[in-house]
């Protein structure tokens, strides 16, 4: 469909689309909020109404009549809520959500110069109209185009125009109005000064004059009234048509007071000006996460911070510049140089950190699309689900964020489809009919963890094994271990679903999820209890970040242990070491028994074993358990920039990434949880369970 737009309208169209999409998000959030709460919050209703009203007006101003029409139907229904004449039932709200989708679709189609279905638009409008049907009067439809003017003949009108004294205070000026009248035809005018007081009594803001006269031309009564439309009620106006034979036909008489009936507006609550702005969190920092464009929107304060740091860098640079000079470096200058270099190091690090932060965005952006998804899917599947979200402010790099969306959608669909049971089944199982789905995000020792947790029926291990045997993935007698089981669950085409629903069950989702997460350098873990629920954890390394690290030396190499993971460091006292079932050493630290680990051994790096006599032990927390890492030396504590080992090499269990040290050499950042797993695995192989 082509729009006839002026150049100006075309220029501003992009802005209009942006605004409208943002408004639709607000609208959607508001509608979902109304659905969740038991009593309809008048402020939310008002906000939601305003968005529909805005889009209607805006679309009209840009010539988008169809969009304006749909928005108008939604606005009518919402006005019904506002007036208390209609109640926001779940059905009405769902219909409005359909309207949101419709508007979004139409805006996108218009923006991308595609077509959309006029028919389905029509049907949606009809349904909205039906839902808004009520006896109370409702806002008029958007201005209909004027009916073509009837054939015109010259007519003559006589009029009398007597402004009330306060007319000027409305900003209207009778002379201008008469000037407009003069444009319509031949005007003969006489002024009536009878009400004019003497100079002393004259008040400049009051109007004392009146006019009467005739207007002749190819003009209609409506056009004359139009000139005076704004001053209805502020003036006495009489217009009568003078017919050829001299008889005077009284045309419209403007009553001196506005007698037109005012429809009683029964507001549900006083229309207080909505205080808090309904802005979605951190809009300024929102990036085009979904579009995956090569640009991001950055919060102004992040840029300000950057500017400050560059400023400090410049100061440091000039300070170092001052130290340039002739003559040998004396102790004083050396000292200043040292200071300056330290300052430089700090400045550079902060700058680096700030720039990295530009790319990072709160995960809330991705989480935001789920309330709607869960709502729609829940209805579709006939399941009652409450969505809880935690950790929306956890920041991730923009590229990671973009790739996280689809895997999460798959996982949420799975939870709703196969995890959370139908209300009857839940009731029979003694669970509340309302199922709970949680989306959580948090930092854990150098990783970001994103979890999808449901309180559904869990994954039945025996069924998985049976199905795997059926599919030939497992031999008839093979008993898989934890990792093998996980591999099965995420195998392409694997599904224990009895039927393939529209939503999931084709088994194509999970392997793609794992592959996507792995391509980000992470992995997926499953924790499930049959009957109670399932937790799927996506663990992603902070590959673009700065972390606080403790440098340690093992043999000739240095490694970095994330400071967050360190509990404490102790000098090993050999008497506290117990040999346990063969090769495992346990350390007795106060009342705790901590398994000890030789990094060389665990990582498979050839090097000298750290003997307990000379070792330091760094106690770290891995997945809730404490493990003691044996090292030769504790080096500096410093901030390190996480560099990807993944991009050119690959993922290594036990390593969270790499970093470049001050001397230019590469050091690895340990993944404490991964090391814990490696340790458990090697113990399992030796047939020994760690204490």
């Amino acid at each position, binding site marked *: 469909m082509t729009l006839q737009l*002026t150049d*100006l*309208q075309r220029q*501003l*169209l992009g*802005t*209009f689309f942006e*605004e409208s999409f943002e408004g639709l998000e607000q609208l959607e959030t508001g509608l979902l909020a109304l659905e969740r709460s038991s009593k309809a919050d008048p402020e939310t209703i008002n*906000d939601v109404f*305003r968005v529909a*009203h*805005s889009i*209607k*007006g*805006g679309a*009209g*101003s*840009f*010539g988008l009549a169809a969009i*304006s029409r749909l928005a108008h139907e939604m606005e009518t229904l919402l006005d019904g809520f506002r007036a208390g004449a209609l109640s926001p039932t779940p059905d009405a709200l769902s219909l409005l959500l359909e309207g949101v989708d419709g508007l979004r679709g139409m805006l996108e189609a218009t923006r991308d110069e595609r077509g959309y279905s006029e028919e389905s638009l029509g049907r949606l409008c009809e349904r909205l109209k039906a839902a808004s049907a009520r006896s109370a*009067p409702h*806002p*008029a439809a*958007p*201005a209909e185009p004027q009916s073509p003017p009837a054939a015109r003949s010259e007519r003559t009108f006589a009029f009398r125009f007597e402004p009330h004294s306060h007319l*000027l*205070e*409305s*900003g*209207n*000026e009778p002379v*201008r*109005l008469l000037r*407009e009248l003069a444009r319509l035809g031949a005007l003969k005018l006489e002024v009536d000064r009878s009400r004019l007081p003497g100079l002393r009594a004259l008040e400049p*803001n009051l109007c004392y004059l009146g006019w009467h006269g005739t207007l002749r031309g190819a003009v209609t009564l409506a056009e004359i009234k139009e*000139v005076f*439309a*704004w001053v*209805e*009620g*502020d003036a006495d106006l009489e217009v009568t048509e003078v017919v050829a034979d001299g008889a005077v036909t009284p045309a419209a008489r403007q009553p001196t007071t*506005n007698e*037109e*009936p*005012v*429809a009683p*507006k029964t507001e549900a609550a006083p229309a207080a*000006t*909505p205080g808090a*702005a*309904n802005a979605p969190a951190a809009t300024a920092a929102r990036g085009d996460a979904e579009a995956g464009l090569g640009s991001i929107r950055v919060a102004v304060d992040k840029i300000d911070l950057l500017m400050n740091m560059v400023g400090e860098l410049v100061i440091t640079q000039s300070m170092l510049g001052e130290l340039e000079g002739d003559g040998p470096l004396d102790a004083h200058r050396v000292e200043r140089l040292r200071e300056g270099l330290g300052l430089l190091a700090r400045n550079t690090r902060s700058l680096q950190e700030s720039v990295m932060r530009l790319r990072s965005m709160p995960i809330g952006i991705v989480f935001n699309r789920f309330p709607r998804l869960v709502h729609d899917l829940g209805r579709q599947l006939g399941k009652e689900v409450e969505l809880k979200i935690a950790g929306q402010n956890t920041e991730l790099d923009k590229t990671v964020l973009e790739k996280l969306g689809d895997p999460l959608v798959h996982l949420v669909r799975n939870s709703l489809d196969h995890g959370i049971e139908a209300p009857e089944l839940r009731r029979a199982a003694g669970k509340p009919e309302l199922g709970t789905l949680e989306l959580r995000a948090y930092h854990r020792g150098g990783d970001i963890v994103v979890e999808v947790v449901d309180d559904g029926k869990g994954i039945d291990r025996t069924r998985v094994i049976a199905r795997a045997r059926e599919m030939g993935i497992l031999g008839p007698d093979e008993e898989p271990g934890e990792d093998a089981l996980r591999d099965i669950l995420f195998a392409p085409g694997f599904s224990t679903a009895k039927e393939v629903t529209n939503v999931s069950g084709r088994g194509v989702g999970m392997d793609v999820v794992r592959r996507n997460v792995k391509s980000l350098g992470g992995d997926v873990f499953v924790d499930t209890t049959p009957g109670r629920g399932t937790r799927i954890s996506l663990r992603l390394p902070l590959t673009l970040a700065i972390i606080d690290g403790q440098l340690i030396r093992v043999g000739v190499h240095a490694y970095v242990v994330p400071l967050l993971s360190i509990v404490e460091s102790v000098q090993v006292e050999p008497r506290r070491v117990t040999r346990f079932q063969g090769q495992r050493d346990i350390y007795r630290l106060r009342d705790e028994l901590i398994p000890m680990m030789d990094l060389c051994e665990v990582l498979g790096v050839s090097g000298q074993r750290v003997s307990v006599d000379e070792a330091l032990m760094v106690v770290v927390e891995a997945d809730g358990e404490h493990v003691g890492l044996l090292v030769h030396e504790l080096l500096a504590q410093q901030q390190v920039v996480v560099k990807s080992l993944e991009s050119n090499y690959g993922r290594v269990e036990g390593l969270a990434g790499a970093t470049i040290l001050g001397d230019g050499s590469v050091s690895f950042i340990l993944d404490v949880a991964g090391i814990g797993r490696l340790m458990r695995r090697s113990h399992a192989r030796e047939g020994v369970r760690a204490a």
Partner: protein
Amino acid sequence: MAKIMTVDDSVSLRKLVAQTLAGAGHDVAEAANGADALSTAKQKTFDLIISDLNMPGMDGLSFVRQLRQLAAYRTVPVLILTTEMDPAKKKEAKEAGATGWLVKPFDPSQLLATIRKVLD
């Protein structure tokens, strides 16, 4: 050549009005909400103010009411932009102090023709 201020929280519509007026040779200032508009009005004098009704925070009518309290703006023309004009709304607008209204959607010529009624 008049000094006009346009007030609307919708950037696209505000610019549509502002740029249409500027194109006709007027000196146009913009405000995104009632509060900003009031403070701008105190700093500069305008021959005409055009405001949307439907704004968050301070809505159009509240803005007009507060504007009329300022001595300099007792009789300055103020037009409100609105998508419909039923009689009750008209009364409300007049009582708040509005000079007149302009119904959305309007095209540039309608806008320019309407402001002729209030500008010399």
